[in-house]
């Protein structure tokens, strides 16, 4: 139990660090950041928005430390200021509309990639040196070094524009009303096929290689030899003896890769014009919408920390040593 409490404390500190970066950066800029934000926005913002924005970011004539606490208070009460690009909407509103789509994309593809990659890795290690291993492992290495951006553009071009079999933008057909209907869900699925496929494809290679290398290490261990000697079936030795232990370092790699998957998801959304955080962010960057860009760091950090906490629970399940502590 104390393991989980320690982790939660750690995540809290990590969250504070992200918030502090957000607090300090505008203050390191020359001039008054709120004025600069407004100069960028042109005259689309009314003066009262300026005051609200200044208060959210703690730009009030106080000592720095007090400004910091005012800022922290607004972060913890989910107030990230107003979006400059989509003015009447707050940053929170804009991000919350987009976040579910990003979580859907990133979550589905990362789980898909981890399961497929690890299973292939287990198999490649088990038949090490066989024809399967010698084809799949080098190709996994090659795929691993190809960025999501490039694979996204290529699939978009081939399936979306040359073959015209898959839609090239939006999350669902705009002529369908969102709702819990078969028509809507199938449209969502159809539109997500290419982005999820691309994202999963990019990260499969990494999981495959990690699993294969861990598994090869495990296969040389004595408990695996003993499993064989006891006359257990290959399947049981493979999954319950070797793979279960090889999965632990793999989970660490999985947790570390979440950040890059989220980054990849941002890029993929821009390429496929998918209405997630990435797309919102792209528009925000072009309009120099600083509150929006800062808000996404907080939201993404939160998503990342929550995912890490979930992985900690899985750790406890996989590693009995942690349960006692």
């Amino acid at each position: 139990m104390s393991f989980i409490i320690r982790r939660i404390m750690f995540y809290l500190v990590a969250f504070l660090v992200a918030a502090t970066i957000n607090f300090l950066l505008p203050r390191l800029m020359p001039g008054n950041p709120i004025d600069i934000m407004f100069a960028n926005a042109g005259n689309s913002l009314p003066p009262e928005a300026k005051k609200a924005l200044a208060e959210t970011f703690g730009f009030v004539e106080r000592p720095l430390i007090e400004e910091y606490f005012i800022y922290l208070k607004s972060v913890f009460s989910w107030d990230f200021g107003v979006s400059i690009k989509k003015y009447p909407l707050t940053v929170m509103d804009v991000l919350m509309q987009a976040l579910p789509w990003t979580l859907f994309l990133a979550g589905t593809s990362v789980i898909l990639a981890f399961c497929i990659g690890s299973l292939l890795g287990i198999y490649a290690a088990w038949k090490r040196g066989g024809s399967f291993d010698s084809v799949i492992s080098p190709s996994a290495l090659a795929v691993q070094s190809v960025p999501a951006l490039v694979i996204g553009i290529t699939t978009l071009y081939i399936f979306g524009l040359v073959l015209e079999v898959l839609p090239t933008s939006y999350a669902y057909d705009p002529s369908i009303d969102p709702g819990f209907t078969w028509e809507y869900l199938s449209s969502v699925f159809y539109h997500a096929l290419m982005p999820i496929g691309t994202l999963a494809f990019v990260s499969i290679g990494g999981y495959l290689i990690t699993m294969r290398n861990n598994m090869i290490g495990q296969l040389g261990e004595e408990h695996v030899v003993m499993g064989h000697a006891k006359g257990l079936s290959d399947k049981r030795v493979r999954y319950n003896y070797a793979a279960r232990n090889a999965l632990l370092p793999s989970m660490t790699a999985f947790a570390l890769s979440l950040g890059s998957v989220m980054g990849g998801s941002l890029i993929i959304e821009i390429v496929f014009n998918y209405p997630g955080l990435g797309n919102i962010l792209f528009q925000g960057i072009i309009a120099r919408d600083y509150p929006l860009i800062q808000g996404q760091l907080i939201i993404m950090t939160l998503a990342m920390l929550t995912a890490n906490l979930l992985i900690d629970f899985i750790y406890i399940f996989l590693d009995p040593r942690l349960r006692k502590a």
Partner: protein
Amino acid sequence: MLKFFSIVMRNKKATAGMLIVLAYIALALAAPLITSHDPAKRVARPHQAPSVEHVMGSTRMGRDVYTQFVWGTRTSLMVGFSAGLIVTVIGTLIGVTAGYFGGVIDESLNFITNIALVIPQLPLLLVLAAFIGKSDPFMIALIIGLTSWAWGARVTRAQTLTLRRREFVEASEQIGEPSWRIICIELMPNLLSIIGFNFIGSVVYTIITQATLEFLGLGDPLAVSWGNMLYNAQTSSAITVGAWWEMFAPCFAIVTIGIGLSLLNFGVDEISNPRLRTLGAINKAVKAQKKFDRSYKSAKGAAS
């Protein structure tokens, strides 16, 4: 240096990777000799398909794609290597210090490393780049370098911790060698392969991330680089109007340099860790054994 090449040549993957990387370095160095246009000037009509005059076609702005590709190689390699250097120096310093000194130093450094690992990279870079404004390639190298050292620090620390308990380190401690000597003379040579792995990996990561940041419109639009080529192609919707060549050149460049560096990296890793070797090496060993058995048998047959 010569010894390094002869080690690399022993492994097929490493050799292939080495050749690709050297080819790109040659391209970057020879940029003024092999291009005849100015990469930032209008030299053709917009969106011309590849032809004899413009081997890789022209962009929406009428710039020569081939020229931009060659000059972009310069930018990407310079950014990649300088950020890789920053990442490796910071990562190694933190990792070795934490792993060697242990105690409170280790705990605090490890804590910082873990926090840096858990904050998502790309969103953080976006915030930094957005506030810095039109970041030129070197600014991008600097911010990538300063934010991406955590993975290297973690791996280096783990390796230092295992080395720390070996007899030769303990022996040097017992005879009273100063810490700097133990770190530089005893530990460093054993950490070299991990540091090298970290460096090459960081270069790949930086090249991809720089392209991504510029693709998102956070770079200096006047710089000639692969990322800006992608950004211009995306904003002029090159793919949708069928001008695939405008996208193809930078994509091809990023993919091949990435594959080249990774092959080099994994090849070197295989050389230093024989357990990871695939088919080729194992088959070779099996064949050698069979050949030995045969000659042994025939030798025995001849003797009897």
